[in-house]
């Protein structure tokens, strides 16, 4: 390449983001990629940290701006409400298309824009339930438990961004605008691993099983400062088992050599309660006095799959992430905010979290129309 063009991949793309919470991650992804994202309306975040994360790179517009008017200069509109609420706001797909045929309207909604539940009220928790992911999470003796952090916003936002970019390509190549109907319930149902297929093919309904598969050597183990996740076997077959036994033996764990017995190759034994508990006792007696970082460093050097159960603070101090300058400081509403870097690194393009403003800051702004 003679001279490299380092511009952002979505340079020149204008987005009007009229989301209220559920759809906010879609616009955030587009902003990192260089789209000009105008944020209209308010969002429902309880946490200022969530508001900062979701609005990075977005430009807050005044609350009383006429959204339809702003769309004249836009390529994409992102909304995240059901059909009745959208109609109330004057943003029904038909109204938008009538006013702006050469626009992509990405309509994220709880259940999709049609069907009997289309206008059912919903939140993150109820959509995880309606999409089947909640049923898979938790201990069997307790109620199902939701994933931290309103993951429906990530699930919906990533699918919606994929759809938006496909439709953007059509718009830019052929001038055809369209409406993209993203159902959060369907997006959640799309992330059940193999639960639908288990039922269809083997007649088995998967249920919640706690922190993971029940097999000796695999799962969560307590250590001095928290937990580590060890994978010492998968599908009933041992993984790096000799290395694990040698590790414990070298550390002087009494009876570690017992784990070298042939029965630890046997999948029935490995999945028995007795084996699971026996291994746990041995490993935790060793891990009890060691930190996550020590255990993971030593284990990985021996070729063992072991990871820290990282807290947010651990991640902020993680040597790998720091060495790679993962965290970025950007200006949000006039304050420095530390954000994780973008999910991907482009070698030849400007892709990163950018300065932005939250809807709270937009209250005092005049309306200004974006332009392509």
């Amino acid at each position, binding site marked *: 390449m003679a001279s490299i063009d380092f511009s952002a991949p979505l340079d020149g793309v204008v987005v009007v983001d009229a989301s209220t919470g559920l759809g906010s991650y879609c616009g955030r992804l587009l902003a990192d990629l260089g789209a000009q994202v105008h944020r209209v309306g308010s969002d*429902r975040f309880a946490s200022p940290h969530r508001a*900062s994360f979701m609005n990075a790179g977005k430009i807050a517009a005044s609350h009383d701006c006429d959204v339809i008017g702003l769309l004249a200069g836009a390529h994409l509109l992102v909304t995240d409400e059901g059909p009745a609420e959208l109609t109330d706001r004057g943003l029904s797909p038909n109204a938008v298309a009538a006013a702006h045929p050469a626009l992509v309207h990405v309509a994220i909604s709880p*259940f*999709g824009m*049609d069907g*009997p*539940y289309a206008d*059912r*009220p919903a*939140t993150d*928790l*109820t959509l*995880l*339930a309606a999409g*089947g*992911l909640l049923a898979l999470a*938790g*201990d069997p003796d307790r*109620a199902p*438990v*939701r994933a*931290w*952090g309103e993951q429906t916003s*990530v699930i919906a936002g990533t*699918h919606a961004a994929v759809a938006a970019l496909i439709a953007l*390509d*059509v718009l*830019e190549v052929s001038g055809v605008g369209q409406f*993209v109907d*993203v*159902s959060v*319930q*369907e997006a959640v149902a*799309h992330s059940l*691993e193999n*639960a*639908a*297929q*288990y039922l*269809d093919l083997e007649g*088995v*309904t998967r*249920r919640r099983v706690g922190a*993971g598969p029940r097999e000796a050597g695999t799962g*969560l183990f307590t250590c001095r400062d928290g*937990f580590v996740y060890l994978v010492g076997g998968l599908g009933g077959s041992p993984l790096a088992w000799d290395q694990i036994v040698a590790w414990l033996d070298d550390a002087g764990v009494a009876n570690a050599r017992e784990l070298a017995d042939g029965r630890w190759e046997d999948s029935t034994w490995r999945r028995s309660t007795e084996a699971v508990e026996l291994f746990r006792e041995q490993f935790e007696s060793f891990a009890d006095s060691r930190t996550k970082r020590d255990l993971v460093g030593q284990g990985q050097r021996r070729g063992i799959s072991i*990871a820290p*159960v*990282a*807290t*947010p603070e651990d*991640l*902020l101090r993680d040597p*790998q992430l720091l060495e*790679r300058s993962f965290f970025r400081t950007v200006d949000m509403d006039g304050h420095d905010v*530390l954000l*994780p870097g973008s999910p991907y690194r*482009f070698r030849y*393009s400007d*892709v990163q979290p950018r300065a932005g403003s939250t809807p709270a800051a937009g209250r005092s702004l005049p309306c200004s129309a974006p332009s392509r």
Partner: protein
Amino acid sequence: MQRTFPLSGVRVADFSWVGAGPFLTKPLADHGADVVKVESRQRRDPIRSMAPFRDGERGPDRSGYFANRNTSKRSLCLDLKDPRGRDLALRLISTSDVVVNNFSPGTMDRLGLGYDAAREVRPGVVYLEMPMIGRAGPHHGWRGYGLTIAAAGGLLGLTGYPDRPPVGTGTNFPDHVPNPLHGAVAVLAALRKRRRTGQGEYIELAQLESTANVIGPALVAAAAGDAPVRDGNRDDLAAPHGVYPCAGDDSWCAIAVVTDDQWSGLCRVLWDERWDEPALAGADGRRRNSGRLDELVAGRTRSWVADDLARALTDAGVPASEVLHADALMLDAQLRARGHWEVLDHPVMGPSVYDAIPYRLSATPGALRSPAPLLGADSEAVCVDLLGLDAAEYRQLEEEGVVG
């Protein structure tokens, strides 16, 4: 009539396997890209050997886990360790717009199929790799699986009951959502830039970094000294907010009350005179008393059938849903009305259930264009029609186990 799809004309040389990579290339394939999945009979995609299997019987063409991630793709078997196999892979790259792999760092370079080799035969290629924690950095050689990425990325530790060790989502969540879909977003954005500038791209998606973004708000909070902790189903805004027991075995209803109107709605459906106290009249009071409130609500929900309760509550304006297991999910009125479950007739597995694309483009919709390919089903078509081998050459290489 042959439909045209929005990504018709885009070709993807897909060296990815197992969980995350195949879900990255699936939306491209379902919207018309020609995704050629490269495997070999010696080293086939491990997910072909993962349950569930049609009728419980194992076999490389019987896994539902594999099938649901690989619709609309073609399968090419190549022995990449053989120089002639490698040469065919390079020929495939030379006619592809996108190359994707999720091998451990350096694997593609050692095979002679790294980015430099790829752009030599295909200037302007968009090349994406997805190492676990990055190609460089002090821990770049670390090994792991979907479950360990959820642990290292922070989602596992934050998800679970406050008084117990974490439990996570019960799935390899990073493999199903953030890592593949962030990857697809990146590829599509890079293709847009290439259309406008002619310039290709090298994209590194470190799975740890991608996954850390799903708890992004927690990282922002921790940096501000306000780190969240594991808190079950409790919510910052809503109370009551939880998963409540209903009539029957392991039957539950998720309920979220955010506003006073929703509280009134809940009271209309589940009224109990013990709720009639000033402390519960406002949202702040309900949040402060959320533990006791949960018990009160659970006391009323136990006599309800979960689906009836969800209908009554949502009719009253309260966000609610039965906790659907796969059996109920398949029969869910909304998913059925939306056509979410599609049945495709797979040549070995027979009619089988697949997830539909969870979004519809009104003018240029995608489709599950074909069920998952049998191992090597398209080897001959790709080698002869696309890569220009003549039939005799193909037979020869097939006999020697290089293709097929």
